[in-house]
């Protein structure tokens, strides 16, 4: 049966050790030590995380964050206090399609994010120092998250206390930007895609949807793309903004 066990360990999920749980305003940063067979993936990809000893029956899709000194993920404090704080977390991934960063640079690419979508942006900022971010921060609790995980890679994030759309329209009017990368709730993605299309600017949107598996099996993460129901985990979570406008 050694071959069987070998197959099982190759597929995953693989256990990650929880190193620390740090309060982050109303959220929590969970620092983990990944199994060497698991990698963080590219910005926009996700992992399915679950606590083998926890109460949640199903894993949840979470984006891992490459920190200066390790790997972590952000959850709300209630989750951190219960299911997602270990001592071990089962990690399956990376899964899904991340951002295509082949045309990305700090001069012509603009980032827009809100809510947990903010956790995607440090990974891009790490690759493109000085890139501009418009951050939708309705909840003051989310501010420490941005301070903590962006470090110096994203300079002076522009905070939008209300909607990100007004500063986005202002930014695109200048004609500097040819591409917008966005992550956040469904309403944000649709609005960003529409505004970018109106300005003739390309957009990539990281979508959010509830998932049971993350690899196309459950069909639970239906999102509207090209006017039809598609699986967010397979077609996305990062999609061309045009696909939201059909």
């Amino acid at each position, binding site marked *: *049966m050694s071959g*069987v*066990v070998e*197959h*099982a*360990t*190759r*597929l*995953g*999920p693989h256990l990650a050790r929880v190193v620390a749980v740090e309060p982050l305003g109303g959220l929590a940063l969970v620092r983990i030590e990944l199994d060497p067979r698991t990698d963080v993936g590219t910005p926009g990809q996700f992992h*399915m995380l*679950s606590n083998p000893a926890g109460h*949640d*029956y*199903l*894993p949840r899709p979470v984006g891992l964050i490459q920190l200066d000194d390790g790997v972590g993920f952000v959850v709300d404090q209630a989750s951190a206090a219960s299911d997602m704080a270990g001592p071990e977390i*089962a990690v*399956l991934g990376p*899964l899904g399609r991340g951002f295509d960063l082949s045309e990305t640079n700090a001069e012509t690419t603009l980032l827009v994010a809100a809510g947990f979508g903010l956790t995607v942006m440090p990974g891009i900022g790490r690759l493109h120092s000085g890139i501009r971010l418009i951050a939708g921060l309705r909840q003051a609790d989310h501010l420490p998250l941005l301070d903590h995980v962006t470090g110096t890679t994203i300079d002076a994030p522009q905070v939008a206390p209300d909607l990100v759309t007004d500063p986005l329209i202002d930014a695109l009017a200048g004609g500097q930007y040819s591409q917008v990368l966005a992550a956040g709730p469904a309403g944000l993605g649709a609005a960003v895609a529409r505004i970018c299309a109106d300005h003739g600017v390309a957009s990539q949107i990281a979508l959010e*949807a*509830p*998932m*049971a*598996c993350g*690899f*196309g*099996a*459950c*069909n*639970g*993460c*239906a*999102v509207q793309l090209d006017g*039809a*129901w598609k699986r967010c985990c*397979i077609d996305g979570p990062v999609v061309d903004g045009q696909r939201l406008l059909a």
Partner: protein
Amino acid sequence: MSITVGRLKLAQPLLNGSGTWDAEQAHRIFGDANPGLAGFVTKTITPEPRAGNPAPRIAPSRQGLLNSIGLPGPGREAFLATVLPYLRTIVAGPIICSVGGFSLADYVDTVAALEGDPACAAIELNVSCPNVESGCASIGGDAGETERLTHAARQVTTKPLFVKLSASVADIATIAKAAEAGGADALVCVNTVKATAVDRRTGKSWFGGGGGGLSGAAIKPVALHAVVACREVTTLDIIGLGGVESADDVRDLLAAGACAVALGTALFRNPALAYTISADLAP
């Protein structure tokens, strides 16, 4: 541990439940179309392409998963032309095609179309999906309808014919006997149990497509009851499924009278689960 279930030979007793695994995506992502499974049971094939139900489609439940997916799929023609030939190149072991529809003719036409395709090793009639507007569960909830459908399918196929039952019926044993009378080779016990999540504002189903079905550990006792009840009234082979997560769960279903066991919701958490269970079952 090779076995035979309903005239279908399997190298070992573990399969997936229909609709709980996507062999194409698993092959692409994990490099293993049906990891640790003796074959592959397809998602239910409907006559026409279906988009599936609007979101939301899933909701968590204590020790389970609620879903209202609505049988999305490419339809019979595309399945036969492109999906099944590709599956045959990537799946290890036999492919069992799940067939659904909204009338007796829907089922019979698909079964007849599959009869001539050697890539299809066996056919499973889904008469128990709770998440479509008609057909399926309404057929499987009635003994007469179940017997008529099974008999009609039997007339157009020589392949092993399985009937997947619902526990959300007054008496599953009656339905099992009807499937046997109609000419089934095996029973599959059970599909998701009718259940829902409620939108507090409206008092109606929270799911975009309405309805809902419960799967996962919460329904293992329901599956055990179904297998015991069917075992008492038929001699048909039984594939047991519902809440299987471990080798002990498999042992329980086998002890209750199943000869093979399918994994479902637990595969979402651990795509390698069949390998783990096989290792644990090994003497």
